[in-house]
Protein backbone atom coordinates (compact mmCIF):
# COMPACT_ATOMS: atom_id res chain seq x y z
CA UNK A 1 0.00 0.00 0.00
CA UNK A 2 1.47 3.31 -1.03
CA UNK A 3 1.04 6.33 1.25
CA UNK A 4 -1.77 8.85 0.93
CA UNK A 5 -0.53 12.12 -0.58
CA UNK A 6 -3.05 14.02 1.54
CA UNK A 7 -0.75 13.26 4.50
CA UNK A 8 2.09 14.90 2.59
CA UNK A 9 0.29 18.21 2.20
CA UNK A 10 -0.25 19.23 5.82
CA UNK A 11 -2.26 22.42 6.30
CA UNK A 12 0.85 24.38 7.38
CA UNK A 13 2.53 23.39 4.11
CA UNK A 14 -0.49 24.35 2.01
CA UNK A 15 -0.71 27.66 3.88
CA UNK A 16 2.95 28.59 3.39
CA UNK A 17 2.73 27.52 -0.26
CA UNK A 18 -0.25 29.75 -0.86
CA UNK A 19 1.00 32.66 1.24
CA UNK A 20 4.78 32.43 1.45
CA UNK A 21 6.28 34.52 4.28
CA UNK A 22 9.33 36.78 3.88
CA UNK A 23 8.99 36.57 0.12
CA UNK A 24 11.06 38.87 -2.08
CA UNK A 25 14.37 40.66 -2.25
CA UNK A 26 15.11 42.93 0.75
CA UNK A 27 15.92 46.63 0.33
CA UNK A 28 19.17 46.40 2.28
CA UNK A 29 22.33 44.65 1.13
CA UNK A 30 22.06 40.91 1.59
CA UNK A 31 24.01 37.81 0.65
CA UNK A 32 22.21 36.09 -2.25
CA UNK A 33 22.30 32.30 -2.02
CA UNK A 34 21.16 30.17 -4.96
CA UNK A 35 19.24 26.94 -4.33
CA UNK A 36 18.69 24.99 -7.54
CA UNK A 37 17.60 21.47 -8.35
CA UNK A 38 18.51 21.04 -12.03
CA UNK A 39 16.58 17.77 -12.32
CA UNK A 40 13.18 19.19 -11.46
CA UNK A 41 13.85 22.85 -12.23
CA UNK A 42 13.16 24.24 -8.73
CA UNK A 43 15.04 27.53 -8.41
CA UNK A 44 15.15 29.79 -5.36
CA UNK A 45 17.30 32.67 -4.16
CA UNK A 46 17.74 33.19 -0.41
CA UNK A 47 18.65 36.65 0.91
CA UNK A 48 20.58 36.60 4.15
CA UNK A 49 21.36 39.62 6.32
CA UNK A 50 23.52 38.81 9.34
CA UNK A 51 24.78 40.91 12.21
CA UNK A 52 27.90 39.09 13.31
CA UNK A 53 26.72 35.71 14.58
CA UNK A 54 23.01 36.55 14.35
CA UNK A 55 20.71 36.20 11.37
CA UNK A 56 18.81 39.47 11.33
CA UNK A 57 16.64 38.85 8.28
CA UNK A 58 16.18 36.00 5.88
CA UNK A 59 13.91 36.15 2.85
CA UNK A 60 13.51 34.24 -0.40
CA UNK A 61 12.02 34.23 -3.87
CA UNK A 62 11.78 31.78 -6.73
CA UNK A 63 9.87 28.85 -8.13
CA UNK A 64 9.28 25.36 -6.89
CA UNK A 65 6.73 22.85 -5.70
CA UNK A 66 4.63 23.28 -2.56
CA UNK A 67 7.08 21.25 -0.49
CA UNK A 68 10.18 23.22 -1.46
CA UNK A 69 8.43 26.58 -1.30
CA UNK A 70 6.74 25.96 2.07
CA UNK A 71 10.03 24.64 3.45
CA UNK A 72 11.83 27.82 2.37
CA UNK A 73 9.06 30.01 3.78
CA UNK A 74 8.99 28.24 7.14
CA UNK A 75 12.79 28.34 7.28
CA UNK A 76 12.82 32.13 6.92
CA UNK A 77 10.34 32.42 9.81
CA UNK A 78 12.15 30.04 12.13
CA UNK A 79 15.68 31.33 11.63
CA UNK A 80 15.11 35.07 12.09
CA UNK A 81 17.14 36.20 15.13
CA UNK A 82 18.84 32.80 15.51
CA UNK A 83 22.60 32.42 15.69
CA UNK A 84 24.39 30.79 12.79
CA UNK A 85 25.17 27.87 15.06
CA UNK A 86 21.53 27.40 16.04
CA UNK A 87 20.49 27.62 12.37
CA UNK A 88 22.93 24.90 11.39
CA UNK A 89 21.80 22.70 14.29
CA UNK A 90 18.14 23.08 13.32
CA UNK A 91 18.90 22.38 9.65
CA UNK A 92 20.79 19.24 10.58
CA UNK A 93 17.99 18.08 12.88
CA UNK A 94 15.47 18.66 10.06
CA UNK A 95 17.51 16.69 7.55
CA UNK A 96 18.08 13.93 10.09
CA UNK A 97 14.32 13.69 10.79
CA UNK A 98 13.60 13.38 7.06
CA UNK A 99 16.12 10.56 6.65
CA UNK A 100 14.51 8.48 9.41
CA UNK A 101 11.86 5.80 8.95
CA UNK A 102 8.33 7.28 8.96
CA UNK A 103 7.58 6.03 12.50
CA UNK A 104 10.98 6.67 14.11
CA UNK A 105 11.00 8.99 17.16
CA UNK A 106 12.34 12.51 16.59
CA UNK A 107 12.97 15.65 18.67
CA UNK A 108 9.59 17.29 18.12
CA UNK A 109 10.28 20.09 20.60
CA UNK A 110 13.33 21.25 18.65
CA UNK A 111 11.71 20.88 15.22
CA UNK A 112 8.43 22.65 16.12
CA UNK A 113 6.45 23.55 12.98
CA UNK A 114 8.99 21.68 10.86
CA UNK A 115 7.21 18.51 12.03
CA UNK A 116 4.63 19.38 9.34
CA UNK A 117 7.16 17.88 6.95
CA UNK A 118 7.30 14.53 8.74
CA UNK A 119 4.88 13.15 6.14
CA UNK A 120 7.56 13.68 3.48
CA UNK A 121 9.42 10.67 4.92
CA UNK A 122 6.87 8.38 3.25
CA UNK A 123 7.69 9.99 -0.14
CA UNK A 124 11.44 9.55 -0.65
CA UNK A 125 11.29 11.32 -4.03
CA UNK A 126 10.17 14.51 -2.29
CA UNK A 127 12.82 14.70 0.47
CA UNK A 128 15.08 16.66 -1.88
CA UNK A 129 12.30 19.25 -2.21
CA UNK A 130 12.03 19.72 1.56
CA UNK A 131 15.79 20.13 2.06
CA UNK A 132 16.63 22.17 -1.07
CA UNK A 133 16.80 25.63 0.56
CA UNK A 134 18.02 24.32 3.92
CA UNK A 135 21.01 22.65 2.27
CA UNK A 136 21.87 25.81 0.32
CA UNK A 137 21.71 27.95 3.44
CA UNK A 138 23.73 25.53 5.56
CA UNK A 139 26.38 25.26 2.86
CA UNK A 140 26.67 29.05 2.94
CA UNK A 141 26.75 29.27 6.75
CA UNK A 142 29.38 26.58 7.14
CA UNK A 143 31.59 27.64 4.20
Amino acid at each position, binding site marked *: *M*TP*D*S*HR*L*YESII*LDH*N*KSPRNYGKPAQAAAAIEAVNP*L*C*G*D*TFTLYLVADGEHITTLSFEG*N*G*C*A*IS*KASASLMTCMLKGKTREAAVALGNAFESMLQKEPDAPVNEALLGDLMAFSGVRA*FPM*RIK*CAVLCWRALLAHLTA
Partner: protein
Amino acid sequence: MKQYHNKATDGDVENPVPTDSALQVRGAFPILGRSINDAPLAYLDNAATTQKPQCVIDAMTRYYAAENANVHRGVHYLSSLATERYETARENISRFFGATEEAGYCTVFTSGATQGINLVAHGLKHDMQCGDEVLITQMEHHSNLVPWQLLCEATGAKLRVVPMNENGALCMEEFERLLNTRTKIVAATHVSNVLGTVNPVREICAMAKAQGAVSVIDGAQSAPHVPVNLATLGADFFGFSGHKLYGPTGIGVLFGRMEQFERMPPYQSGGNTIRTVTLEKTTFAPPPERFEAGTPHIAGAVGLDAAVAFLQSLGLSRIAAHEKALLNYATKALESIPGVRLIGDPPDMAAIRSFVMAGVHPHDIAQVLDNAGVAIRSGHHCAQPVMAFYQVPATARVSFGVYNTKADVDAFATALHTVREMFS
Protein backbone atom coordinates in the same frame (compact mmCIF):
# COMPACT_ATOMS: atom_id res chain seq x y z
CA MET B 1 8.94 -13.77 -43.14
CA LYS B 2 6.62 -11.15 -41.76
CA GLN B 3 5.70 -8.37 -44.14
CA TYR B 4 4.98 -5.04 -42.54
CA HIS B 5 3.51 -2.16 -44.43
CA ASN B 6 2.74 1.12 -42.83
CA LYS B 7 0.02 1.98 -45.29
CA ALA B 8 -1.37 5.29 -44.21
CA THR B 9 0.34 8.58 -44.80
CA ASP B 10 0.10 11.69 -42.67
CA GLY B 11 -3.16 13.50 -42.55
CA ASP B 12 -5.96 10.97 -42.36
CA VAL B 13 -6.60 11.48 -38.66
CA GLU B 14 -8.90 14.45 -39.13
CA ASN B 15 -12.04 12.59 -38.14
CA PRO B 16 -11.32 10.83 -34.88
CA VAL B 17 -13.32 7.76 -33.91
CA PRO B 18 -15.48 8.11 -30.78
CA THR B 19 -13.42 7.55 -27.65
CA ASP B 20 -15.64 4.66 -26.56
CA SER B 21 -14.34 2.48 -29.37
CA ALA B 22 -11.04 1.90 -27.63
CA LEU B 23 -8.55 -0.30 -29.38
CA GLN B 24 -9.43 -3.21 -27.08
CA VAL B 25 -5.82 -3.97 -26.26
CA ARG B 26 -5.77 -3.49 -22.49
CA GLY B 27 -5.74 -7.23 -21.91
CA ALA B 28 -2.44 -7.47 -23.76
CA PHE B 29 -0.69 -5.32 -21.12
CA PRO B 30 -0.24 -7.18 -17.82
CA ILE B 31 0.78 -4.07 -15.86
CA LEU B 32 -2.61 -2.45 -16.50
CA GLY B 33 -4.14 -5.05 -14.21
CA ARG B 34 -2.43 -3.65 -11.14
CA SER B 35 -3.69 -0.91 -8.89
CA ILE B 36 -1.85 2.12 -7.52
CA ASN B 37 -2.98 3.50 -4.15
CA ASP B 38 -6.03 1.21 -4.29
CA ALA B 39 -7.13 2.79 -7.55
CA PRO B 40 -6.92 1.26 -11.02
CA LEU B 41 -3.81 2.45 -12.83
CA ALA B 42 -4.52 5.22 -15.34
CA TYR B 43 -1.17 5.41 -17.10
CA LEU B 44 -0.96 8.75 -18.90
CA ASP B 45 2.83 9.17 -19.08
CA ASN B 46 3.33 7.48 -22.43
CA ALA B 47 5.60 10.19 -23.82
CA ALA B 48 8.12 9.23 -21.11
CA THR B 49 7.82 5.52 -21.75
CA THR B 50 5.10 3.08 -22.73
CA GLN B 51 4.02 -0.13 -21.02
CA LYS B 52 4.90 -3.45 -22.63
CA PRO B 53 2.46 -5.90 -24.19
CA GLN B 54 2.76 -9.59 -23.29
CA CYS B 55 3.94 -10.38 -26.84
CA VAL B 56 7.04 -8.21 -26.31
CA ILE B 57 7.75 -9.70 -22.89
CA ASP B 58 7.28 -13.21 -24.30
CA ALA B 59 9.52 -12.60 -27.32
CA MET B 60 12.37 -11.46 -25.08
CA THR B 61 11.84 -14.28 -22.58
CA ARG B 62 11.77 -16.83 -25.39
CA TYR B 63 14.94 -15.39 -26.84
CA TYR B 64 16.80 -15.64 -23.54
CA ALA B 65 15.29 -19.02 -22.64
CA ALA B 66 15.80 -20.79 -25.95
CA GLU B 67 17.70 -18.77 -28.54
CA ASN B 68 20.46 -16.81 -26.82
CA ALA B 69 23.97 -16.59 -28.28
CA ASN B 70 26.18 -13.85 -29.66
CA VAL B 71 25.53 -12.60 -33.18
CA HIS B 72 27.74 -12.41 -36.26
CA ARG B 73 30.38 -14.60 -34.62
CA GLY B 74 30.08 -18.31 -34.07
CA VAL B 75 29.24 -21.03 -36.51
CA HIS B 76 27.16 -23.00 -34.01
CA TYR B 77 23.40 -23.35 -34.28
CA LEU B 78 22.38 -20.87 -31.57
CA SER B 79 24.70 -18.17 -32.88
CA SER B 80 23.19 -18.58 -36.29
CA LEU B 81 19.66 -18.46 -34.81
CA ALA B 82 20.41 -15.33 -32.74
CA THR B 83 21.91 -13.66 -35.82
CA GLU B 84 18.82 -14.52 -37.82
CA ARG B 85 16.52 -13.10 -35.11
CA TYR B 86 18.58 -9.90 -34.91
CA GLU B 87 18.79 -9.36 -38.66
CA THR B 88 15.15 -10.28 -39.21
CA ALA B 89 14.22 -7.65 -36.63
CA ARG B 90 16.26 -5.10 -38.56
CA GLU B 91 14.56 -6.05 -41.82
CA ASN B 92 11.03 -6.04 -40.39
CA ILE B 93 11.50 -2.68 -38.68
CA SER B 94 13.03 -1.15 -41.83
CA ARG B 95 10.09 -2.34 -43.91
CA PHE B 96 7.50 -1.11 -41.41
CA PHE B 97 8.94 2.39 -41.55
CA GLY B 98 9.55 2.40 -45.31
CA ALA B 99 13.29 2.65 -44.72
CA THR B 100 14.26 -0.19 -47.02
CA GLU B 101 17.49 -0.72 -48.90
CA GLU B 102 15.58 -0.23 -52.14
CA ALA B 103 14.51 3.20 -50.90
CA GLY B 104 18.18 3.97 -50.23
CA TYR B 105 18.09 3.59 -46.45
CA CYS B 106 20.17 1.71 -43.93
CA THR B 107 18.96 0.75 -40.44
CA VAL B 108 21.32 1.03 -37.49
CA PHE B 109 20.37 -0.23 -34.04
CA THR B 110 21.16 2.28 -31.30
CA SER B 111 20.41 2.52 -27.59
CA GLY B 112 17.68 5.05 -28.36
CA ALA B 113 16.87 8.33 -30.11
CA THR B 114 19.48 10.24 -28.10
CA GLN B 115 22.32 7.98 -29.19
CA GLY B 116 21.12 8.15 -32.79
CA ILE B 117 21.33 11.95 -32.85
CA ASN B 118 24.75 11.89 -31.16
CA LEU B 119 25.93 9.38 -33.74
CA VAL B 120 24.88 11.67 -36.59
CA ALA B 121 26.36 14.78 -34.94
CA HIS B 122 29.65 12.92 -34.46
CA GLY B 123 29.59 11.61 -38.02
CA LEU B 124 28.92 14.98 -39.63
CA LYS B 125 31.43 16.88 -37.52
CA HIS B 126 34.33 16.34 -39.88
CA ASP B 127 32.33 17.96 -42.71
CA MET B 128 31.66 21.17 -40.80
CA GLN B 129 33.65 24.36 -41.18
CA CYS B 130 33.73 27.69 -39.44
CA GLY B 131 30.82 29.76 -40.77
CA ASP B 132 28.63 26.77 -41.60
CA GLU B 133 25.23 26.73 -39.96
CA VAL B 134 23.10 24.18 -38.14
CA LEU B 135 19.39 24.98 -38.11
CA ILE B 136 17.24 23.59 -35.29
CA THR B 137 13.87 24.58 -33.81
CA GLN B 138 12.88 26.26 -30.59
CA MET B 139 10.87 23.24 -29.47
CA GLU B 140 13.65 20.63 -29.42
CA HIS B 141 14.21 18.16 -26.61
CA HIS B 142 17.68 18.71 -25.13
CA SER B 143 18.71 15.55 -27.00
CA ASN B 144 18.26 17.31 -30.32
CA LEU B 145 19.80 20.55 -29.12
CA VAL B 146 22.87 19.85 -26.96
CA PRO B 147 24.66 17.57 -29.50
CA TRP B 148 24.38 20.38 -32.07
CA GLN B 149 25.62 22.99 -29.59
CA LEU B 150 28.67 20.80 -28.94
CA LEU B 151 29.23 20.28 -32.67
CA CYS B 152 29.09 24.05 -33.23
CA GLU B 153 31.51 24.71 -30.35
CA ALA B 154 33.94 22.17 -31.77
CA THR B 155 33.80 23.36 -35.38
CA GLY B 156 33.03 27.07 -35.24
CA ALA B 157 29.71 26.48 -36.97
CA LYS B 158 26.74 28.62 -35.98
CA LEU B 159 23.56 27.31 -34.38
CA ARG B 160 20.43 29.02 -35.64
CA VAL B 161 16.96 28.49 -34.22
CA VAL B 162 13.58 28.51 -35.98
CA PRO B 163 11.08 30.14 -33.59
CA MET B 164 7.56 28.97 -32.85
CA ASN B 165 4.41 31.00 -32.31
CA GLU B 166 2.31 31.23 -29.15
CA ASN B 167 0.26 28.18 -30.24
CA GLY B 168 3.41 26.09 -30.33
CA ALA B 169 3.46 25.77 -34.12
CA LEU B 170 6.72 26.25 -36.00
CA CYS B 171 7.07 29.56 -37.91
CA MET B 172 7.65 28.14 -41.37
CA GLU B 173 8.27 31.59 -42.89
CA GLU B 174 11.13 31.96 -40.43
CA PHE B 175 12.38 28.51 -41.36
CA GLU B 176 12.47 29.55 -45.01
CA ARG B 177 14.22 32.79 -44.11
CA LEU B 178 16.87 31.13 -41.93
CA LEU B 179 17.62 28.29 -44.36
CA ASN B 180 20.44 29.38 -46.64
CA THR B 181 23.49 28.16 -48.54
CA ARG B 182 25.55 28.07 -45.33
CA THR B 183 23.04 25.68 -43.69
CA LYS B 184 24.67 22.26 -43.60
CA ILE B 185 22.36 20.49 -41.15
CA VAL B 186 18.66 20.89 -40.40
CA ALA B 187 17.60 19.10 -37.20
CA ALA B 188 13.96 19.11 -36.13
CA THR B 189 11.62 17.09 -34.00
CA HIS B 190 8.71 15.42 -35.77
CA VAL B 191 6.42 15.70 -32.73
CA SER B 192 7.18 17.98 -29.76
CA ASN B 193 7.51 16.06 -26.49
CA VAL B 194 6.02 18.99 -24.57
CA LEU B 195 3.42 20.53 -26.89
CA GLY B 196 2.41 17.57 -29.05
CA THR B 197 2.99 19.73 -32.14
CA VAL B 198 3.28 17.70 -35.34
CA ASN B 199 5.82 19.55 -37.48
CA PRO B 200 5.62 19.54 -41.29
CA VAL B 201 8.76 17.44 -41.56
CA ARG B 202 8.20 16.37 -45.14
CA GLU B 203 8.37 20.03 -46.24
CA ILE B 204 11.30 20.66 -43.89
CA CYS B 205 13.27 17.75 -45.36
CA ALA B 206 12.47 18.75 -48.94
CA MET B 207 13.53 22.34 -48.34
CA ALA B 208 16.71 21.23 -46.57
CA LYS B 209 17.53 18.94 -49.47
CA ALA B 210 16.97 21.71 -52.01
CA GLN B 211 19.51 23.80 -50.11
CA GLY B 212 22.00 20.93 -49.91
CA ALA B 213 21.60 20.46 -46.13
CA VAL B 214 21.39 17.12 -44.31
CA SER B 215 18.04 16.62 -42.54
CA VAL B 216 17.93 14.93 -39.11
CA ILE B 217 14.50 14.16 -37.68
CA ASP B 218 13.91 13.27 -34.04
CA GLY B 219 11.14 10.69 -34.27
CA ALA B 220 11.03 9.74 -30.58
CA GLN B 221 7.50 11.11 -30.15
CA SER B 222 6.18 10.50 -33.65
CA ALA B 223 7.04 6.86 -34.36
CA PRO B 224 4.59 5.56 -31.70
CA HIS B 225 1.76 7.94 -32.60
CA VAL B 226 1.57 8.83 -36.30
CA PRO B 227 2.22 6.87 -39.51
CA VAL B 228 5.85 7.30 -40.55
CA ASN B 229 7.23 6.29 -43.91
CA LEU B 230 10.82 7.30 -44.56
CA ALA B 231 10.55 6.99 -48.33
CA THR B 232 7.68 9.52 -48.29
CA LEU B 233 9.14 11.67 -45.54
CA GLY B 234 12.48 12.04 -47.30
CA ALA B 235 14.61 12.56 -44.18
CA ASP B 236 18.33 11.88 -44.41
CA PHE B 237 18.24 10.62 -40.81
CA PHE B 238 15.36 9.64 -38.55
CA GLY B 239 15.78 8.14 -35.08
CA PHE B 240 13.46 6.80 -32.38
CA SER B 241 13.51 4.89 -29.09
CA GLY B 242 12.06 1.41 -28.72
CA HIS B 243 10.69 1.91 -25.22
CA LYS B 244 8.36 4.71 -26.29
CA LEU B 245 6.91 2.34 -28.88
CA TYR B 246 5.85 -0.52 -26.55
CA GLY B 247 9.28 -2.12 -26.89
CA PRO B 248 12.11 -2.60 -24.38
CA THR B 249 14.42 0.09 -23.00
CA GLY B 250 18.00 0.26 -24.25
CA ILE B 251 17.19 -0.27 -27.92
CA GLY B 252 16.41 2.24 -30.62
CA VAL B 253 16.80 2.74 -34.31
CA LEU B 254 18.54 5.25 -36.53
CA PHE B 255 17.44 5.18 -40.15
CA GLY B 256 19.72 7.00 -42.54
CA ARG B 257 20.42 7.28 -46.21
CA MET B 258 23.15 4.77 -47.09
CA GLU B 259 25.15 7.42 -48.96
CA GLN B 260 25.21 9.56 -45.79
CA PHE B 261 26.19 6.68 -43.51
CA GLU B 262 28.90 5.58 -45.93
CA ARG B 263 30.86 8.82 -45.64
CA MET B 264 30.70 8.87 -41.83
CA PRO B 265 33.41 7.50 -39.52
CA PRO B 266 32.45 5.03 -36.75
CA TYR B 267 30.79 6.57 -33.68
CA GLN B 268 32.42 4.08 -31.36
CA SER B 269 34.98 1.53 -32.45
CA GLY B 270 35.79 -2.01 -31.47
CA GLY B 271 34.39 -5.41 -32.31
CA ASN B 272 31.88 -5.67 -35.18
CA THR B 273 32.79 -2.27 -36.67
CA ILE B 274 35.88 -3.42 -38.53
CA ARG B 275 36.77 -5.13 -41.77
CA THR B 276 40.44 -5.87 -41.10
CA VAL B 277 42.70 -4.94 -38.25
CA THR B 278 46.46 -5.04 -38.08
CA LEU B 279 48.40 -3.46 -35.25
CA GLU B 280 49.07 -0.47 -37.51
CA LYS B 281 45.81 0.11 -39.38
CA THR B 282 42.12 -0.70 -39.37
CA THR B 283 39.66 -0.60 -42.22
CA PHE B 284 36.05 -0.29 -41.17
CA ALA B 285 33.07 -2.40 -42.06
CA PRO B 286 30.28 -0.90 -44.16
CA PRO B 287 27.11 0.40 -42.47
CA PRO B 288 25.23 -0.73 -40.44
CA GLU B 289 28.00 -2.80 -38.77
CA ARG B 290 30.35 0.21 -38.76
CA PHE B 291 28.01 1.89 -36.27
CA GLU B 292 27.22 -1.05 -34.02
CA ALA B 293 30.33 -1.49 -31.90
CA GLY B 294 30.41 -4.36 -29.44
CA THR B 295 27.76 -6.97 -28.78
CA PRO B 296 24.43 -5.34 -29.55
CA HIS B 297 21.21 -5.47 -27.49
CA ILE B 298 20.00 -8.58 -29.31
CA ALA B 299 17.07 -9.30 -26.98
CA GLY B 300 16.13 -5.63 -27.31
CA ALA B 301 15.99 -5.90 -31.09
CA VAL B 302 13.88 -9.07 -30.78
CA GLY B 303 11.53 -7.27 -28.37
CA LEU B 304 11.31 -4.23 -30.64
CA ASP B 305 10.50 -6.50 -33.58
CA ALA B 306 7.57 -7.89 -31.56
CA ALA B 307 6.48 -4.37 -30.62
CA VAL B 308 6.50 -3.29 -34.26
CA ALA B 309 4.45 -6.36 -35.18
CA PHE B 310 2.01 -5.37 -32.46
CA LEU B 311 1.71 -1.83 -33.86
CA GLN B 312 1.31 -3.28 -37.34
CA SER B 313 -1.61 -5.40 -36.16
CA LEU B 314 -3.37 -2.29 -34.84
CA GLY B 315 -2.42 0.10 -37.64
CA LEU B 316 -0.90 3.52 -37.02
CA SER B 317 -3.87 5.33 -38.56
CA ARG B 318 -6.26 3.71 -36.08
CA ILE B 319 -3.86 4.42 -33.24
CA ALA B 320 -3.53 8.07 -34.29
CA ALA B 321 -7.31 8.46 -34.52
CA HIS B 322 -7.84 6.79 -31.12
CA GLU B 323 -5.26 8.99 -29.42
CA LYS B 324 -6.52 12.13 -31.12
CA ALA B 325 -10.01 11.43 -29.80
CA LEU B 326 -8.63 10.98 -26.27
CA LEU B 327 -6.60 14.17 -26.65
CA ASN B 328 -9.72 16.13 -27.63
CA TYR B 329 -11.68 14.61 -24.77
CA ALA B 330 -8.93 15.48 -22.27
CA THR B 331 -8.62 19.00 -23.66
CA LYS B 332 -12.34 19.59 -23.09
CA ALA B 333 -12.00 18.28 -19.53
CA LEU B 334 -9.01 20.55 -18.86
CA GLU B 335 -10.81 23.59 -20.24
CA SER B 336 -13.64 23.04 -17.77
CA ILE B 337 -11.33 23.23 -14.73
CA PRO B 338 -10.88 26.74 -13.30
CA GLY B 339 -7.30 28.03 -13.31
CA VAL B 340 -6.02 25.61 -15.93
CA ARG B 341 -3.98 27.08 -18.77
CA LEU B 342 -3.14 24.95 -21.78
CA ILE B 343 0.46 25.27 -22.91
CA GLY B 344 0.41 25.55 -26.67
CA ASP B 345 -2.48 24.56 -28.87
CA PRO B 346 -1.09 23.97 -32.34
CA PRO B 347 -3.47 23.06 -35.17
CA ASP B 348 -1.77 19.70 -35.76
CA MET B 349 -1.24 17.76 -32.52
CA ALA B 350 -0.52 14.18 -31.49
CA ALA B 351 -1.16 12.38 -28.22
CA ILE B 352 0.52 14.92 -25.90
CA ARG B 353 -0.90 17.87 -23.94
CA SER B 354 0.89 20.17 -21.48
CA PHE B 355 -0.86 22.43 -19.00
CA VAL B 356 -0.37 24.42 -15.82
CA MET B 357 -2.76 25.28 -13.00
CA ALA B 358 -2.77 28.66 -11.25
CA GLY B 359 -1.20 28.47 -7.78
CA VAL B 360 -0.24 24.80 -8.02
CA HIS B 361 3.19 23.60 -9.07
CA PRO B 362 3.13 20.77 -11.65
CA HIS B 363 4.98 18.44 -9.24
CA ASP B 364 2.17 18.83 -6.74
CA ILE B 365 -0.43 18.16 -9.44
CA ALA B 366 1.40 14.95 -10.38
CA GLN B 367 1.73 13.93 -6.71
CA VAL B 368 -1.97 14.31 -5.95
CA LEU B 369 -2.92 12.57 -9.21
CA ASP B 370 -0.68 9.65 -8.26
CA ASN B 371 -2.74 9.28 -5.13
CA ALA B 372 -5.68 8.46 -7.40
CA GLY B 373 -3.66 6.01 -9.52
CA VAL B 374 -3.21 8.54 -12.32
CA ALA B 375 0.37 8.68 -13.65
CA ILE B 376 1.38 11.88 -15.47
CA ARG B 377 4.67 13.69 -15.93
CA SER B 378 5.66 17.02 -14.42
CA GLY B 379 8.81 19.07 -14.92
CA HIS B 380 10.65 20.78 -17.74
CA HIS B 381 10.56 17.66 -19.94
CA CYS B 382 14.19 18.18 -20.99
CA ALA B 383 13.00 21.16 -23.03
CA GLN B 384 13.98 24.20 -20.98
CA PRO B 385 13.85 26.61 -23.98
CA VAL B 386 10.16 25.69 -24.38
CA MET B 387 9.57 26.46 -20.67
CA ALA B 388 11.36 29.80 -21.12
CA PHE B 389 9.21 30.63 -24.17
CA TYR B 390 5.99 30.13 -22.19
CA GLN B 391 7.56 31.68 -19.05
CA VAL B 392 6.72 28.72 -16.84
CA PRO B 393 9.23 26.82 -14.69
CA ALA B 394 7.58 23.50 -15.49
CA THR B 395 4.40 21.99 -16.89
CA ALA B 396 2.19 19.01 -16.18
CA ARG B 397 1.94 16.72 -19.18
CA VAL B 398 -0.58 14.08 -20.08
CA SER B 399 0.22 11.73 -22.97
CA PHE B 400 -1.73 8.88 -24.49
CA GLY B 401 -1.10 5.37 -25.74
CA VAL B 402 -3.01 2.57 -27.43
CA TYR B 403 -4.46 1.20 -24.18
CA ASN B 404 -5.83 4.44 -22.77
CA THR B 405 -9.57 4.88 -22.48
CA LYS B 406 -12.13 7.53 -21.74
CA ALA B 407 -12.19 6.15 -18.18
CA ASP B 408 -8.49 7.04 -17.78
CA VAL B 409 -9.26 10.62 -18.80
CA ASP B 410 -12.23 10.72 -16.42
CA ALA B 411 -10.01 9.57 -13.53
CA PHE B 412 -7.50 12.25 -14.54
CA ALA B 413 -10.17 14.99 -14.60
CA THR B 414 -11.67 13.92 -11.28
CA ALA B 415 -8.24 13.95 -9.63
CA LEU B 416 -7.57 17.43 -11.04
CA HIS B 417 -10.67 18.68 -9.24
CA THR B 418 -9.21 17.23 -6.02
CA VAL B 419 -5.99 19.18 -6.72
CA ARG B 420 -8.02 22.34 -7.22
CA GLU B 421 -9.80 21.86 -3.89
CA MET B 422 -6.63 21.01 -1.95
CA PHE B 423 -4.64 23.99 -3.13
CA SER B 424 -7.32 26.69 -3.25
